[in-house]
């Protein structure tokens, strides 16, 4: 209806002019007036055309409670600016020459599994050539930090099978960015899956009448209202300046909007956990219709809308059937092994389960969405050991008597031991967000690589276990029961581990901790062997790690015998670590 207001106004003015000018009754004047009115009609009927590139998933109804970040900007310019610099904003973007990270001029072409694909730019748009020779517009891009994936228009959006790695400035088949066995990629559904977390208030919009989806979102990317909740009521209330100044004077919580920093750490973390966790809907029917836009809002209990998927819950009645084995998502101690699911790790951390009040660990204990560096969005002063020292005695725990490492060395950093790089995502290893300590009893029995050996890659697990027993009085229970390999742990993980362990070990080979502890040149022959790994992601990481080593150390091993033996023992498990 508002769209009709301007044309109706224009026609009204034209009619008034007509009546006014025609009052003189002169035929010439009437003719002039009629011509003016006639000329006005096309303008009245003309409405600006919707921009052709406007992607179909962005459909916000007039009655929406969401107002979008453009509205937030006028009153919260600083917060808007810091969000605007973040990768959250650009998580999903409408594709144009400005938003596509890759250069597609001159046109690009690839062949994958004998099928031809291409990308080219035309005007401000990007077009994909598909194996059936059809040319379709690329409408959405997801990702802007590590890699960018592209969605091609159609009755359903389909994922273009190549992604662009921003750091390496190269294209790779999307399936190779995941730790998954060689072979065809599983289909990915924007409308029912990605839209949940890669947009603000996304929903599949299932319509029973036509048995189809009509996805919609308040905004592309993760915008203000993803964390603060819908802003319609807040904006309406604060349009009145007196109301605003009264609110400044009160300085209390505004009930019309959610400020995560005023929530308990548990509730604030649930906002992040809505996306940074493996979950499944409590009410599946409601999910298909509304996504989580009705069942979950920032500040509410996440468990009322989403059931956190944990290793313990998998296989229970009502839990979803996964396309992958549980051990591909979780280590045998329940720790999530996929990056981007940090909430799964947080809720198992003692700092979360045993923390009380403000000393309870939450996402905002370390991260801050505004005024923080876009990479990890760590709060000011919370880099390095700073975050831990807000609760723990920094002097005591940074002392060599606790760390048993030289001050300033990688092994003396809190995160080195308590948040080891044991999660995989985006062609790299990522810190585990299950904050815990290396335990002698788990060193040999768990499939999770332990923090010690992720630096001391050349040491066997037995060495690590004895150090933990000696330094911290831990006891492997039952004492000595587990068989401990005398092979260097890093070599065993890289060449004989499961695909996830292999990817993590390949990344660890280039870490500062490994370079500081293992003999010069030790990693090179192992990484060379990993270049023949059946999993593309492992090969990719191994190649990248190899490049960080001094050229003089990259020579072939003098005696490949032990390496061959490890490769022969490689786990054949078809691990599929996917999003």
């Amino acid at each position, binding site marked *: 209806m508002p769209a009709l207001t301007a044309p109706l106004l224009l026609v009204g003015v034209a009619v008034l002019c007509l009546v006014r000018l025609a009052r003189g009754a002169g035929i010439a004047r009437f003719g002039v007036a009629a011509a003016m009115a006639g000329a006005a009609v096309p303008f009245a009927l003309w409405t600006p055309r919707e921009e052709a590139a406007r992607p179909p998933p962005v459909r916000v109804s007039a009655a929406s409670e969401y107002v979008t970040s453009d509205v937030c900007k006028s*009153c*919260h*310019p600083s917060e*808007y*600016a810091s969000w605007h610099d973040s990768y959250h904003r650009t998580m999903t973007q409408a594709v144009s020459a400005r938003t596509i990270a890759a250069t597609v001029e001159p046109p690009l072409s690839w062949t994958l599994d004998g099928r031809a694909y291409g990308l080219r730019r035309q005007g401000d748009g990007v077009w994909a050539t598909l194996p059936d020779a059809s040319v379709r517009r690329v409408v959405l891009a997801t990702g802007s930090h590590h890699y960018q994936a592209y969605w091609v228009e159609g009755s359903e959006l389909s994922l273009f099978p190549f992604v662009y790695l921003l750091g390496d400035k190269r294209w790779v088949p999307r399936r190779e960015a995941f730790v998954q066995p060689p072979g065809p990629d599983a289909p990915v559904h924007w409308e029912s899956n990605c839209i949940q977390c890669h947009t603000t208030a996304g929903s599949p919009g299932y319509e029973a009448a036509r048995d189809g989806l009509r996805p919609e979102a308040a905004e592309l990317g993760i915008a203000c209202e993803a964390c603060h909740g819908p802003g319609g009521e807040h904006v309406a209330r604060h349009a009145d300046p007196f109301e605003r*100044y009264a609110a*400044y*004077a009160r300085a209390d919580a505004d009930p019309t909007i959610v400020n995560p920093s005023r929530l308990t750490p548990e509730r604030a973390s649930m906002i992040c956990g809505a996306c940074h966790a493996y979950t499944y809907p409590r009410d599946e029917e409601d999910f298909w219709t509304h996504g989580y836009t009705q069942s979950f809002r920032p500040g509410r209990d996440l468990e009322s809308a989403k059931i956190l998927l944990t290793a313990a819950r998998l296989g229970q009645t009502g839990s979803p059937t996964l396309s992958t084995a549980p051990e591909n998502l979780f280590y045998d101690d329940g720790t999530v092994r996929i990056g981007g699911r940090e909430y799964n790790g947080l809720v198992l951390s003692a700092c979360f389960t045993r923390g009380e009040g403000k000393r309870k660990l939450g996402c905002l204990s370390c991260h801050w969405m505004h005024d923080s560096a876009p990479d990890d969005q760590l709060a000011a002063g919370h880099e390095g050991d700073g975050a831990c020292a807000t609760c723990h005695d920094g002097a005591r725990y940074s002392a060599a008597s606790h760390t048993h490492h030289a001050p300033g060395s990688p092994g003396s950093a809190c995160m080195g031991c308590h948040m080891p790089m044991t999660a995989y995502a985006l062609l790299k290893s990522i810190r585990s967000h299950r904050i815990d300590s290396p335990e002698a009893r788990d060193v040999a029995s768990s499939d999770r690589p332990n923090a010690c050996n992720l630096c001391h890659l050349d040491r066997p697990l037995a060495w690590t276990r004895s150090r933990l027993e000696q330094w911290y009085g831990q006891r492997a229970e039952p004492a000595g029961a587990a068989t401990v390999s005398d092979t260097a742990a890093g070599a065993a993980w890289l060449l004989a581990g499961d695909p996830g362990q292999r990817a993590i070990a390949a990344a660890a080979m280039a870490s500062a901790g490994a370079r500081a502890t293992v003999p010069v040149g030790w990693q090179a022959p192992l990484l060379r062997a990993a270049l023949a790994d059946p999993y593309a992601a492992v090969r990719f990481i191994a190649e990248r790690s190899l490049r960080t080593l001094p050229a003089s150390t990259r020579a072939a091993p003098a005696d490949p015998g032990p390496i061959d033996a490890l490769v022969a023992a490689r786990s054949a498990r078809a691990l599929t670590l996917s999003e």
Partner: protein
Amino acid sequence: MSLFVFVSLGLVLETLLAYKVGSYVDVGSEARRTMWRLAHVHGTGLAVLQIAYGLTLKSVPAAADALTSACLLVALGLVPLGFFGGGIVVHGGDPGVLVFAVPPGAVALAFGVGRVALVVARHPR
């Protein structure tokens, strides 16, 4: 004196801009920037108005009136200082509470100027 003060404020603002002082040029300081610019412009303009009023009295002595003079002086005080004060503490996109001094100053200005205009209009040429 007031002309000197508010012209000098312009120099101060240019200096803040030149040295990219964060509390003046940052995105979050847009309201402050706007308020202080308004203080500078209005202060300078109203100071010039005082001079114009003084010159008017030479040719139209009947315009000399304590109430009119008080209105213009109140405007000279409240409008620019309200804007300046509103820029000291800002709430996101909103100026501080001192900006509420501006509307009374604006009313005083309109009243004062209106009175002068009436007298001048009635003054025989």
